[in-house]
């Protein structure tokens, strides 16, 4: 390890000289094969390789289903990549463990310092920046306008309209009005869905000072609200987030809360539906759009941190960032002005940018005050939710029990 560190330090001092050496630059990612997203990433790597002859980039694909587990096993064993993307929820534990390198020098020396999205603050601890945003797309209301029209309703803008729209779709078309993950096998998606409603109704599972608020009035209101859709058959039961998206793409679900990436999924599965998909402001009182996305990070033990910084510059190339927005229809990590042609072609893009700017919320899918132990927190919440969704407990009972469990858990920290 020490030898690696020394080598890294030497490489830093030597500066551009190291670019002349031929070696393999290691960058694992879950995105290499994800259709147009993968193409964009591979194109960036090709640009990097062209600019740095001698360096070959090892594009190790780790499927997203076990990205976090595989990556942390490798890091635990001292097998550290040069550069990598991480899901936002992986960031806080990594910063806390001290395995990421501060990127401030890299940011200052680059041309993108003033273009980075403000959500970079999520990666800042004690004045140092440990990651920069890769994508920060908001999750908001996605609707199938074809189904809504058939049901004779417009895009809902508040709670009552949302319920009425879901019901009308079910009654008039027989398809589901609102789809959301409630399979409880993958905690994070079920947790995110609960955030949509809790934060949307002005609450959250905890407060920034660490107080647990799992059974306060607005939490009870929010969970009762969700459960109603299951009870009345307006939402499919027991399905995971991926099946729900697939159903949306197949025209079997009229509305869901998700990121703009769903449009890419629709494009792949059912291109005919794309013109009928719209991305709208959340119909909740606060309109809060849960924001997830991912960050680029440089590990502290990265063998080639200076080349990692160069790689970041290639990813942050203004023209490439423009394409990230306009080809992938997702918000890239830097501020990009959408072109007129793009706004015309993708009508909801302007709204997406507006939502991202006006209503960002719940960044990193973390309960306030518990960012580092968020995974355990989320699991306990989802345990509680699954008891409520399955009807094993009433909302009140379930949330009271959840409040107790969470409080007991905080005592063990």
């Amino acid at each position, binding site marked *: 390890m020490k030898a690696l560190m020394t080598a890294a330090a030497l490489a830093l001092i030597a500066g551009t000289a190291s670019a002349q050496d031929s070696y393999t630059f290691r960058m694992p990612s879950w995105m290499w094969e994800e259709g147009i997203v993968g193409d964009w990433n591979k194109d960036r790597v090709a640009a990097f390789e062209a600019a740095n002859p001698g360096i070959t980039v090892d594009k190790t694909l780790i499927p997203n289903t076990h990205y*976090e*587990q595989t990556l*942390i*096993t490798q*890091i*635990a*064993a*001292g097998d550290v990549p040069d550069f990598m993307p991480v899901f936002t929820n992986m960031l806080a*534990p*990594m910063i806390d*463990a*001290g*395995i990421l390198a501060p990127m401030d020098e890299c940011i200052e020396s680059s041309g993108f310092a003033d273009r980075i999205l403000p959500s970079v603050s999520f990666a800042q601890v004690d004045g140092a920046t440990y990651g920069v945003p890769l994508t920060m797309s908001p999750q908001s209301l996605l609707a199938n306008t074809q189904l809504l029209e058939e049901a004779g309703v417009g895009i809902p803008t508040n709670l009552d309209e949302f319920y009425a729209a879901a019901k009308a779709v079910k009654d008039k078309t027989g398809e589901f009005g609102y789809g959301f993950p*409630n*399979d*409880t*096998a*993958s*905690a994070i998606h079920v947790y995110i869905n609960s955030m949509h409603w809790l934060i949307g109704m002005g609450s959250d599972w905890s407060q920034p000072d660490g107080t647990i608020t799992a059974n306060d009035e607005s939490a009870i209101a929010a969970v009762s609200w969700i459960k109603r859709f299951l009870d009345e058959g307006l939402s*499919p*039961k*027991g*399905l995971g987030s991926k*099946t729900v998206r697939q159903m949306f793409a197949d025209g079997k679900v009229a509305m869901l809360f998700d990121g703009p990436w769903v449009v890419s999924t629709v494009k792949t599965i059912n291109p005919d539906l794309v013109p009928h998909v719209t991305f709208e402001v959340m119909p909740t009182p606060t309109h809060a759009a849960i924001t997830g996305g991912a960050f680029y990070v440089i590990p502290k033990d990265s063998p080639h941190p200076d080349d990692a910084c160069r790689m970041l510059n290639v990813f942050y190339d203004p023209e490439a960032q423009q394409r990230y927005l306009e080809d992938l229809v997702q918000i890239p990590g830097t501020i990009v002005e959408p072109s007129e042609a793009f706004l015309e072609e993708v009508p909801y893009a302007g709204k997406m940018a507006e939502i991202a700017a006006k209503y960002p919320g719940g960044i990193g899918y973390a309960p306030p005050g518990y960012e580092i*132990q968020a*995974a*355990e927190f989320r*699991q306990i919440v*989802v*345990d*509680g939710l*699954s*008891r409520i*969704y*399955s009807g*094993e407990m009433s909302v009140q009972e379930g949330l009271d029990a959840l409040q107790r469990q969470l409080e*007991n858990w905080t005592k*063990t920290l």
Partner: protein
Amino acid sequence: MRRVFARRFRHLELLPIWLLTPAAIVMSVILIWPIAQGILLGFFNTRILNYNAGRYIGLANYEVLLSDPFFWNSLKVTVYYGIASMSCTYVLGLSFALLLNRSLPLRGIVRTIFILPWAVPEVVAVLIFIWMLDAQYGVVNYFLVEAGFLDAPAAWLAQADLAMPALVLITSWHQFPLALLILLAGLQTIPREEYEAAMVDGAGAFSRFIHVTLPGLRSVNVILILILILNSFRRVTMIYAMTGGGPARATETLSILTYNTAFTYQKIGYAAAIGTVLLLILLAFSLVYFFTIIHVRRDA
């Protein structure tokens, strides 16, 4: 006889050591050395992201564990899963072995069908069952609703009371062929004369099963039941891919809890303590199991 032979070749005693060395080396490097490190890890407060920065904390992990409700839940789940999946697998294996032990038309084809689930990779078996048990479009729900067992489709993998039966179902489907083959082999060693003698004594089919078949299978049962229980206690891939331990931890066996604690909650030191307890439980179980059996045999 064998003992005499061994004595005669005592000067060759180096031979068994040579023969065993390759196996011993492989198992030491891949199994024993890592397990020793794993056990050691249980005495440190290591988080997986700083694997080498863990601090020695003595038995603190074990103290936490004793008051951890999730640990006790997992213990209960493990025992439930172990007994349920073992019983179902055994009953299926024995029933089908009894059916196949008769002369039947198409016996070869039927036997092949019965053995095939064993060949299906675990990850594939899980995929098929997740899809068949799908809460909205699953074919299992369709059959159960049509047959009148259910009023409405059930969310098998999202309901705490249904997830475990579903998991036992897929486990039994996947591993009953092993039980079937071993029991079939056992059935074929029971001498025909014993059945004939029982029939002469006027024993019915059921009585013959109780008094001839079951005792005849005893030595096979001993090994089979142990293998089935140990496998179910150690199973990871299938449960993890199927439910991840959910819903509401209804399928979180100790193996899954170890996995989740190490890789999702990233507390690998604590996970190692849980894994070590699992190892001790298995060890204690095996010892008790063998001593009981030896004891019973001596009595018999």
